[in-house]
């Protein structure tokens, strides 16, 4: 696959369409699967890993599925390109950083991907823009069925799909919904939401899986339990809780508009102004400011830029994306200058007229 062709787009998860897409960024489901005949990846020799990769690569290529998945052999990619795939959420940090034969198969629109030789031999992933867990499940269920016809999964009646880590055994499924929750963060109610979710065994992580402070006010809500509950039950539990969080976020936004509209407008406009005129910009600050702008656009406080542009900027200003767009390797200071320049240009193109 030519990664440069991906550079121009923002990928499925930031497409910015789908139900409730002002708050719900994307829905994602992952399935962990292993081959019955081999040791798990961490225990496999490099010879065995090569065998596993060759076998799976062949079976994936022969899947009766359109569009075809294209296989990327990770050891032959540069560290920059691997980081690029991490930023697009096509591979995990772990897969990017590990060693030996491993890779990822991806469809052109990045809705489906399959990691090979991650912690488990297979990690299937399906991504949808907006709140669309059902669609994502139907798609990944079918992908799993098709693969199952061509390989022998490690499965036991008692423990389900067997995984390297006991935290994934059973369904092997991790379903998550990514939300943009700036108003709950600003009004300091986000902690309350976390505690409530933890009580019902749902995990909350940041955009790239980080624990505490989420970059750009993006949060991923996902299931923790994989054993003893069916896929349908797990998906229902998540599906039930998301509309509540959406409604809290909407209430917080409405309260801010009612009670402190001027303050909010000022904050959003300052964020926009900074993005349009700064000459050095870190990735972290960019995420923060873009989060404010995204909220401003959704509340119609800013009308010079559309949501698709803002979504694209979130991903294009990540370190590896930026370097690929600029066509050269940059150190961190050069990146900050290039990032600021890129933001100014793109926002100007989009018709921004900062006051």
């Amino acid at each position, binding site marked *: 696959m030519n990664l440069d062709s991906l550079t121009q787009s923002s990928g499925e998860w930031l497409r910015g369409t789908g139900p409730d897409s002002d708050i719900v960024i994307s829905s994602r489901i992952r399935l962990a699967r292993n081959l019955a005949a081999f040791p*798990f990846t961490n225990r496999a020799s490099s010879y065995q890993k090569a065998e596993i990769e060759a076998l799976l690569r062949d079976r994936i290529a022969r899947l009766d599925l359109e569009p075809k998945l294209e296989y990327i052999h990770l050891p032959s990619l540069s560290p920059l390109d691997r980081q690029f795939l991490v930023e697009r959420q096509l591979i995990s940090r772990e897969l990017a950083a590990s060693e030996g034969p491993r890779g990822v198969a991806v469809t052109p629109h990045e809705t489906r991907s399959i990691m090979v030789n991650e912690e488990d031999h297979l990690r299937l992933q399906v991504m949808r823009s907006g709140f669309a867990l059902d669609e994502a499940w139907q798609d990944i269920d079918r992908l799993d069925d098709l693969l199952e*016809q061509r390989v022998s999964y490690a*499965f*036991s009646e008692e423990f389900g799909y067997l995984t390297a880590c006991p935290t994934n*055994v059973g369904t092997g499924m991790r379903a998550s919904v990514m939300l943009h929750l700036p108003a709950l963060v600003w009004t300091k109610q986000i902690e309350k939401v976390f505690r409530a979710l933890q009580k019902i065994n749902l995990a909350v992580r940041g955009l790239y899986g980080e624990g505490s402070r989420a970059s750009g006010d993006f949060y991923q809500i996902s299931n923790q339990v994989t054993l003893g*509950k069916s896929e349908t039950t797990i998906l229902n539990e998540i599906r039930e809780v998301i509309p509540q969080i959406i409604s809290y976020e909407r209430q917080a936004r409405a309260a801010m508009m009612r009670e402190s509209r001027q303050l909010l407008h000022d904050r959003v406009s300052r964020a926009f102004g900074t993005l349009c005129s700064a000459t050095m910009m870190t990735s972290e600050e960019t995420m923060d400011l873009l989060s404010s702008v995204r909220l401003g656009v959704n509340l119609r406080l800013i009308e010079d830029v559309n949501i698709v542009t803002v979504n694209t900027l979130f991903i294009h200003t990540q370190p590896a994306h930026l370097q690929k767009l600029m066509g050269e390797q940059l150190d961190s200071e050069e990146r900050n200058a290039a990032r600021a320049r890129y933001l100014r240009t793109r926002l100007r193109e989009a018709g921004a007229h900062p006051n």
Partner: protein
Amino acid sequence: MKCQLCSNPATVHLTKIVEQKKKELHLCERCAEQQQLVQQKELSLPAILQTLIGQHVGPWTDELARLACPACGIKYMEFRAEGRLGCPHDYAVFRVGLEPLLQRIHRAGRHVGKAPRRRPRSAAAEAEVLELKRQLRAAVEAERYEEAARLRDLLREKEAADEPG
């Protein structure tokens, strides 16, 4: 400087002012933690998992400590240290240690949900494969390569029978 509670080197130094009297405290990391004066290391999933794996095996600890998987060779103690199993057979081999752990993580012990359409091997066939893998490991370790090659081919045949093309 030594810790005031034990004799380890003191690394945590604290000055308290209580009722306008200055009080100094010099402790080692462990005692300071026990006194809840310093934050414990950030909780990480592997760390939590390792603590969980360590607990709840009670009377089986000795037996588990000696246990190793005949197929992949991983010892239960290695699983304890790393938090990752070595191969699919481990779920049966380490069952005694895993059952309480799974209860603790998932509050459940039995899978509910999707299953592959092709049924997994029978327990007898599974045991046979496991035995062959044990013999293969032994042959490789003893450098009996001809036997190892024969066993490997036999295993390939068995596993190819349920490995569709």
